[in-house]
């Protein structure tokens, strides 16, 4: 048997398809992308090496600054809010007897729906004359806010709106991750804590929270990468407007690459995005992940 499992031909046959695909469609393009980011490469012409020019332009590109700021905002907001809200939902759901499945399924629903469609839906709900503003009008509010068009403040209102919509859409996933971990905590451990006279809140604080810490790392890195890749919702809710103020890295990349055909420049944005993704994953895994408790 050992001979069969060491058969070189078999190994090659099993590994080759995945290896080839992965290399050709993912690895080589990444390398190419890095190369393009050092090139002047516009649409229909061939790439010409220009050194660090694209990266220098990035520094003076105001829209890139806004996009970076917004991406960072999403990153922090989604990590924090998903952690808190996800935990609260998970804690509440594990503490009810009936209807847990129903609530769970409802909250999880938007996770499987197309964020392009949901983005459009919320775009209309937050548009000046429809949805929420019609409701506000009925309640007698005269100057209803322009949810997706306001431009005042450091983090403008549309960004908050989009951030909350993304929280609404994806919190189900964090909730489920925490629930899976909470229900994995052994019954005896919980019971022991009750016998020792802990209240529910104390049990949650001293038993549940430390035990789900590893899951926090998983959920957080999922959220973090997800929020850096964020594209669909913004594209369909504001398209980066008004005046590029809700642009994030992914939408800016799309605009520069496929609206102005600055392939080289867009590749540089892509490289920044890639580096950010790698850094954030490393960071979360280093800082949040601690030793696994025996459960």
């Amino acid at each position, binding site marked *: 048997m050992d001979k069969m499992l060491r058969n070189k031909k078999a190994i090659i046959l099993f590994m080759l398809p995945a290896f080839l695909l992965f290399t050709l*469609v993912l690895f080589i393009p990444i390398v190419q992308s890095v190369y393009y980011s050092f090139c002047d490469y516009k649409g229909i012409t061939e790439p010409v090496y220009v050194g660090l020019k694209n990266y220098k332009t990035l520094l003076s590109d105001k829209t890139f600054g806004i996009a970076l700021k917004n991406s960072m905002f999403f990153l922090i907001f989604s990590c924090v809010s998903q952690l808190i809200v996800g935990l609260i939902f998970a804690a509440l759901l594990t503490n009810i007897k009936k209807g847990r499945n129903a609530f769970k399924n409802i909250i999880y629903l938007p996770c499987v729906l197309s964020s392009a469609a949901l983005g459009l839906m919320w775009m209309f709900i937050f548009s000046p004359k429809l949805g929420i503003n019609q409701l506000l009008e009925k309640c007698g509010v005269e100057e209803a806010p322009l949810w997706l068009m306001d431009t005042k403040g450091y983090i403008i209102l549309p960004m908050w709106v989009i951030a909350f919509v993304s929280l609404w859409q994806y919190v189900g996933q964090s909730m489920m991750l925490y629930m899976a971990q909470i229900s994995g905590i052994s019954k005896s451990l919980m019971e022991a804590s009750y016998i020792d006279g802990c209240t529910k809140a104390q049990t949650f604080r001293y038993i549940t929270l430390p035990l789900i810490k590893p899951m926090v790392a998983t959920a957080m890195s999922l959220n973090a990468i997800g929020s850096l890749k964020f594209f669909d919702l913004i594209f369909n809710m504001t398209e980066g407007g008004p005046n590029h103020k809700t642009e994030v890295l992914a939408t800016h990349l799309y605009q520069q690459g496929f609206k102005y055909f600055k392939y080289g420049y867009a590749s540089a944005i892509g490289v920044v995005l890639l580096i950010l993704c790698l850094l954030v994953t490393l960071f979360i895994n280093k800082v949040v992940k601690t030793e696994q408790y025996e459960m």
Partner: protein
Amino acid sequence: MSSTRSAIAEPDFSSKKKTSGIQIVIYVFLVLISITYILPLLWVFNVSFKTNKEIFTSPFSLPENITFDNFSFAWTAGRLGTATLNSFIVCAVALILSMLIGSMAAFGIARLRWKGAKLAMTYFLTGMMIPIHCVLIPLFTRFAKIGLSNSLLGIIIPYVTFSLPITIFIMTGFFKGMPNELIECACIEGANIFQIFMKICLPLGKTGLCVTGLMTFIGNWNELLLAMVFISDDAKKTLPVALSKFVGPYNTNYSQMFAAIIIAIIPTIVVYCLFSNQIVDGLTAGAVKG
């Protein structure tokens, strides 16, 4: 996976009193939350039957006459019918290919004995951290040159590739967990390596295949960016792209837009309602492992 499911079926052990005050508060809160989830969808569903005028005059009442004009317009002018079919073809093919190629590689890593197995695993896992945006431009320019842009195959290939890391990761876990004796047995009975893979390991890894299949399918079904960049031909657009592009020219035909949104999400909602528990648990199990 099994642990998650059993956990959900587990009865609540913490509260032994009858429904207390706190419980009621929790229920009220949860109901309110659920409303924020269901109400927007219901509202869109409701207004999608109205005329444009009605949306402004009576936005919250039930529609005066139920007509399907909006839907038929969205279906034909927005080409949502073709788009649904395209999405289905793309996702189904990508699903089959990624499961096959992915589990082959997973088998190679988990079961076959060679030195580079660990290294190969790391290589595939790095793929999980790479956002699709970074390879968009090189892929697009290359595919355009070889005539793969603007074809369904052109998006199937990247979809398969981007589904591989998670498939390999989860399936490797499954294959590693299988008892050695099974394979030894099969070996003694004269099965070759392919038979072992196809007849023993794949059927045993069914749960894993379901989980990865689900993740792959849903992920690809909803993917917008790559499909938008690669496909320009209206007849080949996938659902999210067709929907997003429908807004442009019909920006002000609100009721038709709403109908289009409903058409786009109804299939997913129906499937979800039928298999919600399996889907939620499966996706969570996948995410836990990833």
